């Protein structure tokens, strides 16, 4: 078995454990490449049965249009249940990434996620997080215990031995489960290539309207984008290594418009992928802090 085969088997084993032991699981679907891989693995893990749990997208209302189109298309194609949750109260209040900085991420992602998990009473939520993404993620267990407040306690994690997972929780507590923990960005791309997995077109290089802002290339996806006085929209051939809310996601200049070209570019990459996520850089340990508050 190759390295990718082993990673595939591990992810499938984890998904089957969750379905066998957890009362009410859900798979978080963020529309990105990792979610696409996770969905593909879920289809394989339970075949000939459909994945016996719903999928859920936390919509901040600031996602790229192409992402939302892709989400609906995929749900149709696979015939899976796709729940969409938005923090409507905050959207009404006009919370946005331009005026509200880090509070925006907390309200639209972390709070929205907690509200959604509580609303449906999910006891286990699959996430596409990988340990190679960021230092605090590198420390997290595959079955990550969360208390009633959905908080992670990094200093007191349950030991996780071999492939025997302790899924026991009390009422109100929950598990976050990361079947792709041991995958790297490179593995993800190679697997997408091997399995010919459909991904959002934003990953492929194309001429797109962008502005240069604080060292990032930001795509102007709709009229809500507030331009600064010195900014000018230009057309550039760009693609994205990760996808999130469009005003917070940096593009890279690239000519890679096929999967093979993307893999080749990734193999030779000099920066880690999360450099294009504006929020990770705010303060040392920002990811750990957000995870303690309940973020994925």
């Amino acid at each position, binding site marked *: 078995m190759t390295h990718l085969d082993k990673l595939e088997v591990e992810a499938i*084993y984890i998904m089957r*454990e969750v379905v066998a032991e957890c009362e009410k699981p859900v798979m978080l679907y963020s529309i990105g490449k990792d979610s696409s891989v996770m969905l593909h693995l879920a289809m394989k893990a339970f075949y000939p*049965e459909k994945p016996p749990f719903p999928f859920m997208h936390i919509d901040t209302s600031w996602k790229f249009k192409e992402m939302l189109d892709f989400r609906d298309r995929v749900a149709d194609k696979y015939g899976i249940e796709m729940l969409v949750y938005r923090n409507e109260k905050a959207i009404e209040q006009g919370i946005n990434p331009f005026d509200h900085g880090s509070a925006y991420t907390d309200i639209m992602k972390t709070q929205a996620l907690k509200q959604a998990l509580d609303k449906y009473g999910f006891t286990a939520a699959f996430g596409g997080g990988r340990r190679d993404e960021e230092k605090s993620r590198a420390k997290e267990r595959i079955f990550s215990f969360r208390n009633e407040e959905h908080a992670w306690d*990094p*200093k007191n994690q*349950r*030991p996780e031995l*071999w492939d025997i997972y*302790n899924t026991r929780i009390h009422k109100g507590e929950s598990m976050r489960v990361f079947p792709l923990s041991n995958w790297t960005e490179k593995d993800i791309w190679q697997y997408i290539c091997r399995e010919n997995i459909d991904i959002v077109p934003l990953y492929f290089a194309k001429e797109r309207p962008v502005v240069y802002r604080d060292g990032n290339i930001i795509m102007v996806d709709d009229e809500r984008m507030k331009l600064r006085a010195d900014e000018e929209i230009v057309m550039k051939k760009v693609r994205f290594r990760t996808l999130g809310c469009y005003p917070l996601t940096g593009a890279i200049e690239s000519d890679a418009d096929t999967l093979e070209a993307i893999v080749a570019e990734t193999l030779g990459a000099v920066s880690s992928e999360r450099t294009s996520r504006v929020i990770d850089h705010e303060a040392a340990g920002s990811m750990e*802090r957000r995870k303690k508050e309940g973020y994925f």
Partner: protein
Amino acid sequence: MNDLLKFITCGSVDDGKSTLIGHMLYDAKLIFTDQENALILDSRVGSRGGEIDYSLLLDGLMAEREQGITIDVAYRYFNTEKRSFIVADTPGHEEYTRNMAVGASFADLAIILVDGSKGLLTQTRRHARICALMGIRHFVFAVNKMDLVSYDAEVFQKIELDIRKLMVEFKYATLCVLPVSATEGDNVTTPSKNMLWYRGATLLSYLENIDVSKEESKEGCILPVQRVCRPNANFRGFQGQIVQGKLSVGDKVKVLPSGQTACLSSMYVTDKAMDTCIEGQAVTVSIDREIDISRGCVITTEESLSIGRLFKASLLWMDNDELIEGRSYLLKLGGKMVPATVQKLHYQIDVNTGEKKLIKKGHKNEIISCDISVSEKIVLQNFEKCMAMGRFILIDRVTNMTSACGRVEYVLRRSDNLTYQNMDITRDIRAEMLGQKPVTLWFTGLSGSGKSTVANAVEKELVAMGKHTMILDGDNVRMGLNKNLGFTETDRVENIRRIAEVAKLMNDAGLIVLVSAISPYNVDRANARAIIGDAYREIYISTPLEVCEKRDVKGLYAKARQGQLPNFTGISAPYEVPKDAELSIDTSLMELERSVEKIVKLCCV
């Protein structure tokens, strides 16, 4: 496609584990430029006076960076042209031993660091022992900080001899000892110019080339069933991962523990129909006849698997709470989760000398030999013969903490001679003849809270209703059945266990049982609930301590206040308030008649 090596780094604190891996990643150009820039920036304010501090690449949690230590395992991923690697960097402090074990359970190979200026330390020996316990078969000892001992060959040779002596005790496949300097980079990725006397491979090149694959086994197939897949009425598939051997369509298989046989009629590897599948693959199989198969069953062609209820085990105890003989846990092994009891503690292994020490209790970070019994027959195997069927975890029933991990050393046969005799006259028949539903009302609460008074009144009411009852009073039982028990923790656990077993027997006889016992600890009550089962009803007599103390019917509080009664619940020992009691009654607030009415109602639920 490259193959994959999973390894860990371990050893005592400050032996330079994080630095070694950090240096290897840095030298082999395996980090991204933004990580490199962040590293150089972080190092400027660090303890190496502006020199690059490679350990910062790995210590990820805020608390770790603040304190300059590793608390939990960090996983790093890298590959060279020859191989893909996952390395788990584990903590060196004794306090975090369980996190080190987490890393060890995941790895094929261990790099154990030894400080060349200090030699083997207790922690080095502990880690070697835990690696062996968790099933690692390939060992590399990196004798580090050679720069601090002037790259002296004699220092190295002396330590190497100690290492080889240490390893005699363990079963392993390969062992390599090499001298390095993690900070300076000698023998990490490039051969050292300072140690020309060493002719072996550098660490990275050794890791790139070592073969950790198991010898081709000729043994039968083992497929533990993870879940049953039933998409429609026509298909019933059993999903799991093959942990040994291979299977083909048409093979005659046995299903354990029932022992029924069947032939494989179809097989999928993930979503593709296949004729044959091999060790490691995730499969869905179906069989040619209707037999009962559920999660935890094993589909197999291997003859040597055991079915048993009692086995000898080695444990690594990981919980802050102590391990006590007779206490009940949940055991998870091969997809099966069952109630289990630690029957007999044999000894603890001294991590330093390997000596066996007799013990009464187990403590955190100790390696312990004991007997474990489980509530039903399960499929298992000696760890040495089949790791996947011989390793397990113990889960605390109250806190849900993973309290221990362990391995099956061998299955004890004496339990096989004891089989539960099913009698024709059952509990239900006896209960029906008495015209009642047998339950156990378990009254818990402080001394003087009114347990006995309430239980007595409830029994009178039940008898007046024509019910058949029995009271088991904690104090009275201690004068007879339990008179050989004192008040130590072990005895307390046994006291509750006996009362619960007796209550269960009386329920079997059709009786309604009223137990009145302080039973101050959650674990003990959980144990009683586990033994008695569905018939268990917990009633918490929640009368406040001040009221109980004022009443002081037996004069015990006065004595306890004077220090004459050590371990007196409420004064010098804790009372853990029940979280899942069926009923709470404060006798200082509720009329006795009203209490009785509520409890009698509970009998009928």
